[in-house]
Structure formats: C-alpha cells, structure tokens
C-alpha cells in the first residue's frame, strides 16, 4: 500500500539522523571520561599486625584501646575478666568510629545512637550488622592480629 503523504518529512528525518550521529559521538567521547572518573584506588590491608603484650597489660580491665590495621581503625577490648576482643571501630551503620561505655559494657556510636554489646553484636539503634571481628594469637611477647575479609559480617 502506498501512502499519499509521508509520515515523516525529509527534514525531520535528516534532523533525526544528525541527532543520532551526534548522540553516538557524545557516547563515544563520554565513555573514556566515565571510565576515568570511576577509577578507584584499592588500598591494601596488611597481612597481620603485631601489638606488644606489655602495652596490653598496662590497660585497665573493662577498657579499650584503639590501633590501626591498615585503613581500618580497630578497637581492642579488655573485659573485666581479662579477655581480649578486637573489633573494627567503624560503626556498621554509616562508618562513624564507636566508643566504649564501661558502665554499661556497650559500644556506642554517637552519630545516630547505635549500640553494640561487648561481643560486637548490634543491639539497639540503626546499625544493621555486628562489628567486624579480628582474629588474634599469641606469639611470645607479641599479639598477632589478623583480619579475614571472607568471614561473615567482615566486609569493611
């Protein structure tokens, strides 16, 4: 069937073609720009970190001390019974550093009133997951601390 009139004028067809060609050019030019902008730097984590036992012994029971594990701020808790527990100090809600409240034996995030118990489990407020946990072992007079990113809840 032949149409009496064209559905699309010659001019609009040409304008459409130009629009398409310029869009193709724009996409071709923008692609390297986007890949450039989305390059991200992956900072490496150390294999392990050593802490002197003598320094830990100086800590009072039911208190914390902070140290760096690569780019992760970590918190070492010495319980009232003398047990050692190490967690990531970054709140699992929005990454603020947590503090320890000795009276209630809880970790508290001041940013949005989040609470974790002394096992690092989220108990109150917005934090969705427990605090990531570090592994440790004694080696003479040093405490060797490691972080296993594959463990559940251990993504930082």
């Amino acid at each position, binding site marked *: 069937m032949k149409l009496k009139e064209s559905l699309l004028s010659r001019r609009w067809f040409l304008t459409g073609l130009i629009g398409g060609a310029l869009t193709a050019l724009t996409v071709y*030019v923008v692609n390297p720009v986007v890949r*450039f902008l989305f*390059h991200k730097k992956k900072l490496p984590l150390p294999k392990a970190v050593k802490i002197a036992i003598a320094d830990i012994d100086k800590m009072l029971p039911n208190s914390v001390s902070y140290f760096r594990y690569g780019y992760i701020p970590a918190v070492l808790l010495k319980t009232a019974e003398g047990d050692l527990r190490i967690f990531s100090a970054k709140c699992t809600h929005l990454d603020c550093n947590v503090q320890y409240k000795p009276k209630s034996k809880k970790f508290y995030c001041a940013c949005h009133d989040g609470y974790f118990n002394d096992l690092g489990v989220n108990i109150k407020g917005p934090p969705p997951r427990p605090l990531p946990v570090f592994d440790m072992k004694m080696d003479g007079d040093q405490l060797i601390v490691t972080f296993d990113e594959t463990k559940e809840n251990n993504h930082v």
Partner: protein
Amino acid sequence: MINVIDEISQRIGLGSILSLARKKMVPQHRHTIWYYMGGMLLFLLLIQLVTGPLLLFFYKPSADAAYQSVKEIMVNVPYGWLIRSVHHWSSNIMIVVVFVHFFSTLIVKAYRKPREITWLTGMLMLLLVLFLGYSGYTLPFDERAFFALNVGTEIPGAIPVVGKYAMEFLRGGATVGAHTLNRFFAMHVGILPLALLIVIGVHVLLVQLHGMSVPVSVEKEMKKKKKKILYKPMFPHLLWHDVVNCLILLGVVVTLAVLMPSGLDPDIDFLKPAPDGVKPDWFFLWVYQILKWIPTYVMGIEGEVFGIVVLSMVAGFIALVPFVDWKSQKNELSPIFTFIGVISLIVFVVCTVIGYL
C-alpha cells in the same frame, strides 16, 4: 510534538534573546574565514574546562606528591594518558588559534571604532591564555617544570622598580620551591580561568552588540562595484559551519593526543645543572630568541632589562593600536598599520622557528 525551546522560553523568558539570535547576520566576503576563530576558541576552552577538572580528581598539588600523581594518571588511571594529552594538545592548539585570531584582527583592522574595548579585552585574554599555558606545564613539577619556574619567574624580576616584588609574588618567596607550586596551582586552576571567563563574557557580549566587522578594503571594493555585501543568518546556517569546525577540531585534538601523547621529564634534582638545549615552551620561543640576540649591556643598561622594557613597550603600543591608527578610525585604508601587522607576524613566526632550531 513538544517544542522544547518554546516550553523553556515560556518559563524563563527566552523570547528577546531568541529574536536577537534570529536577527544576527554575518557578512560573507573573502575574509569571512577569520570570523570562525572565536567560535573555535570557545570550543577549545570548553575542552579545557572539561579535561582540567577531570585531571583535578587525581592530581595532587603538593611538591612531594605532584610528580607521582601525574605518573599515576598516565599509568594506572583508565584513559588518564588520553585526558592529560587532550588537555595538553587542546591548550597548544588554543594558543595557535589565539595568535591567528590576534594577528588576523590586527591585519584586517577589526579593532577600529566602535570595537576598541573588544580589542583591549582580546589583548587581555591573549595574556591570560599564555599565562595559563605556562602555569599548566609547571604543575607536573618535573625537571622541565622546575627550570621553567626558575627562568619564567626570573624574567619579571628584570622589570625596573617593581621587578623584585613581581618575582617574589610569583614565586611565593625569594626562591622556587613547594610554595611556588602551590601558587601556580591556585593561578592555573582558580584565578586565571575565572578571570578568563569574566573577560570572555565581556568580549562576546561586545561582539554581539557591535556585530561582525567588515574590513575597509572589502567595503571600498563593494562600493566601487556598486554591490551590497551579502549577509547570511547566523542561526541556523553559520551555526552549522561552527559545528563542522568544532567537530574537525575535536578530531584533530584527539588525533594528536593519541599519536603524540604528553610525556614526562625526570624528577627534580636541585643540584643538577640545566640540561643542554633547555628551552621554554614553543609559544615563548619568540621572546626567548629575541632576548638571546640582545647583547649583555645596551647603552649601559643590562640587556635583559632592556629587552623586557622594549618588549613591554611594543606590547603596549599594540594594545593601543586602535587609538593610534587614526586612518582606520575614519574608515580609511591604513597601509602603515597593515605593514606593522604583517611585520609583527613575520617576526613572531621567524623568531619562533629559529628559537626551536
């Protein structure tokens, strides 16, 4: 079908601007080709304003991190070599087109009344673009940049009376160091682009106000032939010409960036002597060559001081050409100033070539 421009116009009152745009007419004659230089410069500036901030995402502006960050951009960041090379080549081509625009305006006398302020803003932009180019290649803080900073900031020091203060202002102290890089970074990334954008705004506004200048020779020729100069509308006819020019310019810039990517010199060594054949970037070779020819002392004055003063006086004269060329002011042919313009161009090209060789 929705007409997007109509919809926007109803909301922000584009009506007057659009009717002005429809009325903009461009004369067609044998010198029309020079009219396209301005549009090309705006496009090249757009490329700079896009690639510059992109590089800012990864460049670290401190003396101990700048060099490493540029290496990081070239090697580790995807297409970092391309963005940096496009930025570098676009700046070089921009300086070429700026000089073409400058010399063409000087020779066809587009500076005559009522376009004197347009000329002055243009001269200011020429200086800003040259300084942008110079400050840009000092940012990698490699060996070449270090010598460029030393020599480039030493030259204003030769100006009588204010030279010492000018040099200390540029360096951020008596000697070139980390503080100099900070200063040049601030100038290249903030102060100079802002100043350039403001002056461009004034310049483009004046060009729209006055329309395009027709050379006196063309006017007289058409009058003699009893013909009228043909005018074509800017939108959409000549806009298409501009679009084609810009597309080809984009192709040229990317071709140069891909086939001759920007390099990097070795890291700064404060104790190392200047390498053989050390030279400024090409757009300052003409100054470098002229200063080389001047003897150590001229009429009892230090050669460098004499050279700077004379070059400044020549630059000042060229800036004031619209007010001095009274024949052009009366719309008459001015062969003396055409001669001055052509000689300036020849001197510029010859000195640049000799300086390069």
